[in-house]
């Protein structure tokens, strides 16, 4: 809490359609920005003015066109070097930009932290200070609630088993150090390796699950799925009102995920076109299929396309079966090619399904606006509050887990190099402190309690 590190956060609400402001404050704010901001105008960042340019990622690919405001200390809101970035209010863009900063020794600001810094640097007056305190108190309550919300289900199970693992390792270490005189079995280093390795794999799967988006509340992702050649890319193009994706009569045209963001009724939506799902010997196509399947698990809404003009087959049924466990409000069956003569068997089969369905023709663009309305109704029902808190809470957890991963790997290395337990315990303490940023305090007493309840201690 007494650190002077660099922090980032959104400072306007994240809503579809408009512009959003990000603030970076601290000693590396300008450095990091220079790394990713490309502008035709001046290359040296002068204070008190703004620059128009492109924000690029590590591969030099453009993330967004942005306006950057430079404030040099002490002439800034916080009194530190500050960069404010005005970018499109698109959750995906915001995340990418924030991530670039996080990868460069920056962290997500705590609730009220900009204002707190402003206060501590004498930038705001005493009356405002009281308000800051209120803000911090209320915001952190909200964000705790938020993280708890986000920690439902599978995720919280993983976090808890991670916590248990680390406490177990701590207990085994301390057992050796503090209770070596007891008549206890000696624990082999292998046991430690096992727990450490399982912890690292938990962290990895947590990071994966954040990556894959569902838990991250990434915003709304709409996946267009179906076997090859049913017209997925055609639908994508007609929803986008442009020829974004190659359409051809050759089955297996789309090989990778192709996504495009559009605003539908004020809500930002990411449309994803996928490779047709089928068994294939083509390696590239197969990889596309695997990716598409992974997205089936996490997408907010799936538009499952079926060709109404041909007889429903096993490929169709396979996909359908893999989706029946999904909540009914995250699936719409889109019968395509309604301009052609309908296949009786397919029609009959579909009519028996108790899932929302709609008939369209992607080619002729019939019923597309009807489909759009259906989609909007769905996403409004599903829409979680896209407030900045959620992204940031998520990003914070992600950030913590990334740090944790590195610490755990170091830890495992020290175990393997036969380092003394008292030294490994120092690293483990760091790991536990890091995890407690998500779980709330984990103390030495938790470790001692674990020892007392699992081992017969005491003469």
């Amino acid at each position, binding site marked *: *809490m*007494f650190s002077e590190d660099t922090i980032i956060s959104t400072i306007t609400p994240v809503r579809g359609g408009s512009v959003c402001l990000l603030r970076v404050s601290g000693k590396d704010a300008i450095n990091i920005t220079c790394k990713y901001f490309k502008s035709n105008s001046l290359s040296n960042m002068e204070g008190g003015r703004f620059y128009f340019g492109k924000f690029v990622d590590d591969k030099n690919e453009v993330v967004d066109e942005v306006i950057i405001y430079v404030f040099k200390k002490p002439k800034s809101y916080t009194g530190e070097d500050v960069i404010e970035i005005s970018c499109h209010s698109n959750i995906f863009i915001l995340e990418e930009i924030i991530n670039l900063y996080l990868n460069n020794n920056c962290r997500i600001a*705590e*609730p*009220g932290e900009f204002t*707190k810094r402003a*206060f*501590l640097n004498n930038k705001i007056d*005493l009356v405002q*200070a*009281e308000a*800051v*305190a*209120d803000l*911090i*108190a*209320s915001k*952190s*309550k909200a964000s705790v609630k938020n993280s708890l919300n986000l920690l439902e289900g599978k995720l919280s199970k993983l976090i808890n088993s991670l916590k248990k693992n680390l406490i177990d390792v701590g207990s085994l270490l*301390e057992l*050796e*150090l*503090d*209770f*070596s*005189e*007891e*008549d206890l079995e000696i624990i082999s280093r292998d046991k430690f390796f096992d727990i450490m390795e399982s912890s690292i794999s938990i962290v990895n799967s947590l990071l994966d699950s954040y990556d894959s988006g569902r838990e991250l509340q990434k915003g709304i992702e709409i996946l267009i799925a179906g076997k090859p050649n049913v017209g997925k890319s055609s639908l994508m193009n007609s929803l986008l009102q442009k020829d974004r994706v190659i359409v051809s009569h050759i089955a297996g045209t789309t090989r990778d995920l192709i996504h495009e963001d559009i605003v539908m009724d004020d809500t930002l939506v990411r449309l994803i076109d996928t490779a047709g799902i089928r068994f294939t010997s083509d390696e590239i196509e197969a990889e596309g299929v695997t990716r598409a399947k992974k997205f089936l698990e996490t997408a907010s809404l799936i538009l499952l396309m079926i060709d109404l003009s041909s007889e429903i087959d096993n490929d169709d049924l396979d996909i359908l079966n893999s989706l029946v466990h999904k909540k009914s409000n995250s699936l719409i069956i889109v019968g395509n090619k309604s301009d052609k003569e309908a296949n009786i068997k397919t029609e009959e089969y579909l009519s028996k399904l108790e899932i929302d369905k709609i008939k369209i023709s992607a080619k002729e663009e019939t019923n597309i606006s009807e489909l759009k309305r259906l989609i909007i109704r769905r996403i409004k029902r599903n829409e979680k509050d896209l407030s900045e808190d959620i992204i940031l809470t998520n990003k914070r957890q992600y950030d913590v887990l990334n740090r944790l991963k590195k610490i755990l790997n170091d830890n495992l290395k020290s175990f393997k190099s036969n380092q*003394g*337990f*008292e*030294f490994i*315990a*120092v690293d483990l*303490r760091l790991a536990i402190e890091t995890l407690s940023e998500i779980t709330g305090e984990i103390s*030495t*007493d938790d*470790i*001692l309690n674990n020892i*007392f309840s699992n081992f*017969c*201690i*005491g*003469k």
Partner: protein
Amino acid sequence: MNNYDIAIVGGGHAGIEAAVVSAKLGLKVALISLEKNKIGLMSCNPAIGGLAKGQLVREIDALGGAMGKIIDAAGIHFKMLNTSKGPAVQSPRAQADRLLYAKQAQLIISSYSNIDVVEDMAIDILIHSGRITGLGLLKNGQLKTKAVVLTAGTFLNGIIHVGTNKLSAGRAGELPARGLTESLLLQGFQSGRLKTGTPPRIHRDSIDYSKIEIQEPDKNPQPFSYSTESIKREQINCFITYTNNETHEILREGFDRSPMFTGRIQGIGPRYCPSIEDKIDRFADKSRHQLFLEPEGFNNNEIYVNGFSTSLPGDIQERAIKTVPGLEQAKLIRLGYAVEYDFFPPDQLIHTLETKLIENLYFAGQINGTSGYEEAAAQGLIAGLNAALKIKELPGFELKRSEAYIGVLIDDLINKIHKEPYRMFTSRAEFRLLLRQDNADMRLMEKGYELGLIDHKTYQKLQNKKNQIVEIKEKILPGKLSPRQFVDAFSEKSNAISQPQSIKDLLKRPELSLKELMTAGGFNNGFVDASILEVEYAIKYEGYLQRQNLLIEKFNKAEKKLIPINIEYKNIRSLSTEAREKLIKIRPHSLGQASRISGITPADLSVLLIYLEKHKSEIVPRETSI
């Protein structure tokens, strides 16, 4: 009755340290004990030290305390623990001759002409305008004093349980102390009940030694005190044996008469020191439990059956113990028992161990809910020292968590919630790597000397060590070993070198020790092991030590953000209710301390920080030695 500067209630390990330290500072001390010849008696296990506790004893000694010197004179079985591990987690332990220990303690007390031992019982505290003025004694009436250190151990309303029998007593055969708790409650103190236990003692001639394992003491016993040259006393063996299923079955027969299981004992016992009935109940699948048979002295027939603490009925104790190999014919001299006693939750104290409610009243030892002689002695030292300093109008003495286990102990006591008797563990010390038993002198003795608690000769030893450390660092470490010298000495265990290399570089190899390298290079002229170890540790673990030091810096920064005494927590609206209550109760002196109070969140700290900055100008900074 005479006037005293300081009255110390209780002649246990805390009381002794409190008396000695205040006597060293030249004050007139009354040591109030029920019986003179019970001063320094070890009521439980006749041993000093152990993991983490050994560090405490070394620290007490580096501050001029008595415990190290007493055990060095009375120890009959010294053992350095954890020798297979690094120096930071090694600890000395010694078995004591109980009678010699008490005699030695009494000898030290009587060597101070300014300590009067008063055989009496304190039953009341006398207070004038929030400050202690004296004690009411059972036999001698009123005793006037400027300060009181209360170290009543397990004597406050002590009740001993053996099976269904219940007896008011402080420990076996001694009276409990009555009235004191009640008079403290009247002043607004809160009290609770704790429980501890002790095993039966058996006659040493009734043991079949052919059936039990021998545990030998160290060949080269290491003294606890920095002023002790060497341990001269003859050393004796301890023994190990085990319980078995038959033992457990018999013990189970007594469960329906167990004061613990039938709810007659309300006090909470320590989980790290459970009774044997607790162990077999909670770990039912364990088929045996280890027992240490520890002689209580040379001319003492009693053997302490460590690991068999129990409050089961006498007949059960006797039958059960006879199923243990080697103890078939055991003659019980004393039964095991559980004792329940009053304690005062230590969040009622500040870092000097002075009570928040009454000025110049200090609490130390088991009365604060700790267990163990060493924890008690450490508190006795700090409480006595601070009482004396206060009377002399000198600033108080506190130790930081980064400086000493004593600092960790007291900081934990006053900030954390304790559900069971508190015992020191090395894992409680976040800066464990720096708080070694062998460097307590480097950490603390300078402070002890400045306070006038360390004699000149011992201090000179520290200066010598420091000079040697500098010399080794400057002259020896850059010294080089030739490939020839290296091969001659280490061909067996380390890869050869092709160029001459400095000792400092070679020391990075885990398999080589500084002492060996110095010998191989012909550099070892007259350096003591302690100096060599200090340098070796600093070089070998440089990375970790640097990281601990960084953490200490961060820690100190928070410790330096002081919270004024007159802060009104109820005016800080944004604090959570729980945080507000805690802060009002504990009254932390710094933001760092506040962060360690159970239940205070980072958000609460931010709120507090902002409030403090805002009201910077209006507040009275507090005096502090930190």
